[in-house]
């Protein structure tokens, strides 16, 4: 369960109003023994003990009863009673117990939380936020974690990681993992080799819902710290918004060029779908800004819990009813505000109004009904922007979703020799070799690379 009062990830302001890691200051870690034992680290059982099944027993000799494959620990091999796992609470499973543990639900009355009639839910795909003010980087005593200057991707240097595990607990989104075979930290790499080539990450490319967008944001790195020190946590969202620079402003362009940012990068920033959604339309929000991490994966709040509620209620005759609907549906709106804006409810509401208005407009347009276009101005839209926003969100063309400049690495290093350096040579038992063995066999058997590619490379992921 995400509860950073317990696991102490992220930042807080100290008595002087300065940023400090929630887990304690630097001295307290290296000097005062936290390095020998990290008190905030979750145990295996807080995640789950990986298991497997003894499938082989299903092929045993004949017996009185049907055979059964039981769960065995992948660590000890002992038979396990399963009590937790990833997605254990999927689709509100076990809600009477787990809803209580959700800190985002704290302020919502209990009877509403677990009432069938009021049930709402949404999926929140979470990945590393590649934060501007990344506490994982700040926590790492070895300096093994770093943010790339050229694209902001946060990585773990496997050569320098010594397994002190401060990053795991320092990240409030709990997105650094401990590889119990290499005993080092690992995390999302934002598929940097693909990004360098101007291609989207695999998760974004393969998202069947087409909900993931990737684009360039220009920001003022020198102001990050002071923005993260904004005292009022419901103002942090706006403070971060304030860091982003307008890529069409001639002064900004001039400064960017002077700082060595490529024209291609600037041009991509101008077409950035993220800039459009986050800064121009203000329909996207950072996840838990109150952690003061300045996260860089932003979320558009879902309209669906409200739409579901509303569509049963005369929505066809009276589509405008959705606006009071948004105000009435306090529970999902408060919940979203606690997830996405540090409690700034008006910001969430205005995004929902805007999305709802766009929807009403497009519905009227495609079904040939009248629509009083003056209404669009109420939420800051025009006919043009409503249509193009609709295209960006609903049609979601590949070229609109991903506007990524190439890094032109070949100019700074020998791309030929870098090619294929996986960086996992020393890992015992976790190399890709077992999975890729069949590919090597195919190559030895004389199949051409084209054949192997056609058979094994699908949608950007190796499969064999």
């Amino acid at each position: 369960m995400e509860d950073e009062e317990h696991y102490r990830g992220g930042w807080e302001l100290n008595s002087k109003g300065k940023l400090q890691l929630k887990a304690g200051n630097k001295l307290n870690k290296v000097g005062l023994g936290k390095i020998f034992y990290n008190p905030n680290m979750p145990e295996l059982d807080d995640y789950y003990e990986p298991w497997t099944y003894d499938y082989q027993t299903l092929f045993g000799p004949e017996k009185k009863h049907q055979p059964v494959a039981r769960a065995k620990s992948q660590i000890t091999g002992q038979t396990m009673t399963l009590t937790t796992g990833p997605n254990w609470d999927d689709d509100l499973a076990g809600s009477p117990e787990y809803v209580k543990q959700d800190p985002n639900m704290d302020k919502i009355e209990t009877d509403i939380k677990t009432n069938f009639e009021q049930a709402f839910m949404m999926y929140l795909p979470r990945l590393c936020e590649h934060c501007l003010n990344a506490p994982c980087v700040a926590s790492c005593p070895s300096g093994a974690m770093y943010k790339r200057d050229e694209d902001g991707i946060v990585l773990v240097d496997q050569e320098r990681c010594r397994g002190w595990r401060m990053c795991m607990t320092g990240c409030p989104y709990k997105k650094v993992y401990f590889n119990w075979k290499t005993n080092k930290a690992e995390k999302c790499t934002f598929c940097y080799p693909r990004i360098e080539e101007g291609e989207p990450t695999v998760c974004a490319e393969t998202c069947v819902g087409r909900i993931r967008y990737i684009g360039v944001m220009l920001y003022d790195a020198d102001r990050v710290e002071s923005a993260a020190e904004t005292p009022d946590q419901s103002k942090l969202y706006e403070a971060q918004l304030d860091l982003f620079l307008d890529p069409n402003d001639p002064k900004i362009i001039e400064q960017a060029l002077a700082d060595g940012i490529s024209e291609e990068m600037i041009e991509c920033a101008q077409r950035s779908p993220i800039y459009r959604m986050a800064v121009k339309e203000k329909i996207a929000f950072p996840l838990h800004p109150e952690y003061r991490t300045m996260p860089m994966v932003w979320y558009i709040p879902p309209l669906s819990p409200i739409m579901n509620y509303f569509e049963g209620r005369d929505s066809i005759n009276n589509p405008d009813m959705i606006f009071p609907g948004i105000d009435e549906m306090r529970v999902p709106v408060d919940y979203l505000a606690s997830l996405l804006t540090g409690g700034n409810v008006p910001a969430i509401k205005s995004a929902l109004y805007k999305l709802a208005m766009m929807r009403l407009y497009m519905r009227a347009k495609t079904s040939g009904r009248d629509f009083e276009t003056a209404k669009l101005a109420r939420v800051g839209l025009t006919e043009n922007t409503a249509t193009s926003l609709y295209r960006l969100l609903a049609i979601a063309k590949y070229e609109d979703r991903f506007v990524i400049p190439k890094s032109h690495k070949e100019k700074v290093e020998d791309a030929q020799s870098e090619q294929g350096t996986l960086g996992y040579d020393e890992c015992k038992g976790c190399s890709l070799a077992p999975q890729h063995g069949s590919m090597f066999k195919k190559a030895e058997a004389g199949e051409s690379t084209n054949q192997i590619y056609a058979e094994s490379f699908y949608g950007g992921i190796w499969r064999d």
Partner: protein
Amino acid sequence: MADFGSILLWVIFPYAMMLSFIFGTIVRFVWFRAGITAVSSEMLEKRKLMIGSLVFHVGIILAFFGHVLGILIPKSWTEFFGISNEMYHLFGSLMMGTGAGLLALAGMMILTYRRFTNARVFVTSSWTDLVVDVALLITIILGLASTLSGPLFPKFDYRETLSVWARQLFYLSPNWHLMSGVPVIYKLHVICGFLIFGFFPYTRLVHALTLPWQYIFRRYIVYRRKPKAD
């Protein structure tokens, strides 16, 4: 023959172990950096580790400085500062040494017990992890026994024999005769100690060489930059 045995034990063996330490450390840090880690098992078990690891590390680090003081600082220096021999043995060796030793011992007992009895920790241990724990446990017991046995050998002053020999190792002219009068228990402790030195860089123990003290002086966010394209 007796001489040969002494030379082997008190000249060849220590140098072999020291060379092994230096060689292993260089190899590990130059070619196998990616494998250097503290090999944490905290994820598998927390409670015993908390007490064991904290107590052991505090104890062993104190004990390390104790050794530096006791062996590397000549008797004449402490006497120069007006510390009498009795005072030194009573306060320095017996009290502080024993204190540190007991901490390290208690911690290591917990850690070794944990390593062998907790199923998750045991199956994920490499054989060197097991050896390291047992070897440290034995060495710490022998070291404590040596300190505590001090009063049994009133005529023996290690600072006039053992320590002198140890310092001579650094000047490359060890006088192995100095070791002949040393009680067996001390000898065993020394041998185990050098063994640990010998395998130090090839095991999890390398982590002790990587204390990230620079962290305290560093700014929080680390940026890395590729050389810029023109």
